[in-house]
């Protein structure tokens, strides 16, 4: 990509301003005492990008003082961070855009990183767009690949577009920091090097509670939600017409209980009144990206496939050996789902019984 023809002087001035931005930063999302794993995945990726550029890798942690900050900073160093910037303030107890964005932007303006990676969680997405607008810089969302183009030292961010049918590679050439959000479970988990140490820099959040208009009234964790959260669930068990009568879906519920999984189904089941529309998976239903998807009695027509291809692991159970689902599932069991489901339920119950070491 040739640099647009610009008068040498202004380009030089601009390049110099950009050069001032050094280092790779990763946002560490610590909420309600729990660090979202995507933060460590990005520390792993950030380490790689930093080494390619020959610059330091830093974590940035905004959290309330009573959060497990020391523990998190230690983990960040262990996973590869050289420095961790910490901003501890009670205002940061519940996520709100204004304080979090203010804190992050102040840190960015002060320490000027060239790359900032944020997990594409609902928190990360909300925060990233506010920060990017404030910094008037480029932000590429839901990236699936991140590399460095050494000729320009700029980050090449690849992401799905047009609903995932296509991919595109995007650069942020004339603005810094180059920002990107990455979905959970896209980047590999780095190795936890016990005993690896690094620097910690404390910073003060320069905003008072009464400057913040938005107040958080309550928070209800997902577990108590009644409506199916298929789009966000990690484990899903689904059934199709191959299960026959609707009563057989109880076998599905038994397995789901053992796994703590959500239940889904295909279009005909919703039509037959077996389940409500928010349980439907596929082209006209939900698109799911779980860690494990067990499909029982589902033929796997293209209309279903487009909704489940994002799953990490698909186990398909179908009586028909050449059911299309076996073309894209990871593991296939040819057999009667009505006998295999109970067997799976028992096997999982035994394997997951507390304290039982892996076989």
């Amino acid at each position, binding site marked *: 990509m040739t640099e647009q023809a610009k008068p040498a002087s202004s380009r030089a001035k601009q390049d110099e301003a950009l050069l001032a931005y050094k280092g790779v930063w990763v946002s560490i999302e610590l909420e309600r005492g729990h660090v979202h794993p995507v933060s460590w995945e990005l520390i792993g990726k950030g380490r790689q990008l930093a080494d390619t550029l020959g610059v330091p890798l830093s974590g940035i942690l905004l959290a309330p003082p009573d959060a497990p900050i020391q523990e998190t900073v230690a983990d960040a160093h262990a996973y590869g961070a050289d420095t961790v910037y910490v901003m501890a303030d009670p205002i940061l107890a519940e996520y709100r855009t204004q304080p979090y964005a203010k804190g992050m932007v102040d840190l960015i303006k002060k320490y000027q990183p060239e790359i900032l990676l944020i997990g594409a969680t609902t928190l990360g997405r909300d925060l990233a*767009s506010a920060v990017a607008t404030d910094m008037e810089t480029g932000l590429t969302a839901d990236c699936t690949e991140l590399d460095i183009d050494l000729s320009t030292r700029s980050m090449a961010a690849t992401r799905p577009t047009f609903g995932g049918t296509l991919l595109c590679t995007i650069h942020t050439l004339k603005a810094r920091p180059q920002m990107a959000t990455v979905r959970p479970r896209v980047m590999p988990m780095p190795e936890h090097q016990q005993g690896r140490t690094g620097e910690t820099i404390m910073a003060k959040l320069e905003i008072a509670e009464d400057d913040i208009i938005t107040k*958080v009234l309550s928070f209800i964790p997902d577990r108590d939600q009644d409506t199916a959260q298929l789009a966000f669930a990690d484990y899903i068990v689904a059934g199709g017409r191959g299960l026959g009568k609707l009563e057989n879906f109880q076998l599905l519920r038994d397995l789901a209980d053992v796994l703590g999984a959500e239940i889904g189904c295909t279009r005909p089941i919703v039509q037959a009144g077996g389940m409500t529309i928010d349980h439907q998976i596929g082209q006209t239903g939900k698109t799911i990206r779980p860690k494990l998807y067990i499909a029982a009695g589902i033929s796997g027509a293209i209309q279903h496939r487009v909704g489940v291809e994002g799953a990490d692991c698909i186990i398909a159970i179908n009586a028909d050996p050449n059911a299309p689902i076996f073309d894209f599932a990871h593991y296939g069991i040819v057999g009667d789902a009505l006998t295999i489901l109970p067997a799976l339920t028992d096997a999982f119950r035994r394997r997951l019984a507390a304290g039982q070491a892996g076989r």
Partner: protein
Amino acid sequence: MHVIVCIKQVPDSAQIRVHPVTNTIMRQGVPTIINPYDLFALEEALKLKDRFGAKVTVITMGPPMADQALRKALTFGCDDAILLSDRVFAGADTLATSYALASAIAKIGETQPFDLVFCGKQTIDGDTAQVGPGIAKRLGLNQLTYVWKIESLDINAREIVVQRRAEGGVQTLKTALPALITMLEDTNEIRFGTMDDAFRAARTELTLWNAAAAGVTDPSKCGLKGSPTQVKKVFAPPPRAVKATQIKGDSPAANAEHVIDALFSAHPGMQDDLRARTTQNP
């Protein structure tokens, strides 16, 4: 009460196919539609029209033919439609888009003050979910993204309480108007307009604004020039031909054991993750 809804005309990406052999992108016959996520924002705004008699203005930034999306929005019952179209805007990324829309919305606010701006969660072609927050930031609106439901709205007290999807749960937030809301999908269903809506949509004169009319003061912040991000290349993902490894077991129980062995060996952390989840709620 006055509510502004931002919509975008996008290609119906579900219809875009990749040629199985040549792996080229086949765009023939792909119609343009209103970004599906924006329909949830439109319905939520129209509910405020039902409840409070709010005026609903719909705005879009795009090429001249984006007027079709505005006309469709009018058929659902919106009152006014503004098309922001100028060569200067061409090639804008989300940052440049939010600048142009923010300028236009501020311009609207000069003559018709607004209480809420609605956006869809994201677009199906850009998928970046940044335009809404970008507008909120530029206009100093309180940003409420991934909103699930508007719990209460008090016009006189200028207060709104919403439920929004947060990480691992649902947050209830209270903030002041004016605010910007991006609606989560499947929160409502777009209505079927009345015959009067259909007639008004066909007859309404759309307001066409170029950059100047929209109050854009700094054109260098628009279009390609104002876009820090540039798309280098668009390509089709390599076809993923993974055939299922067939589990061979002589009985359902044997099958179960084999598949779980394969699963846990391929995904080491899964057994502990599952165990952690299931012991939490016995």
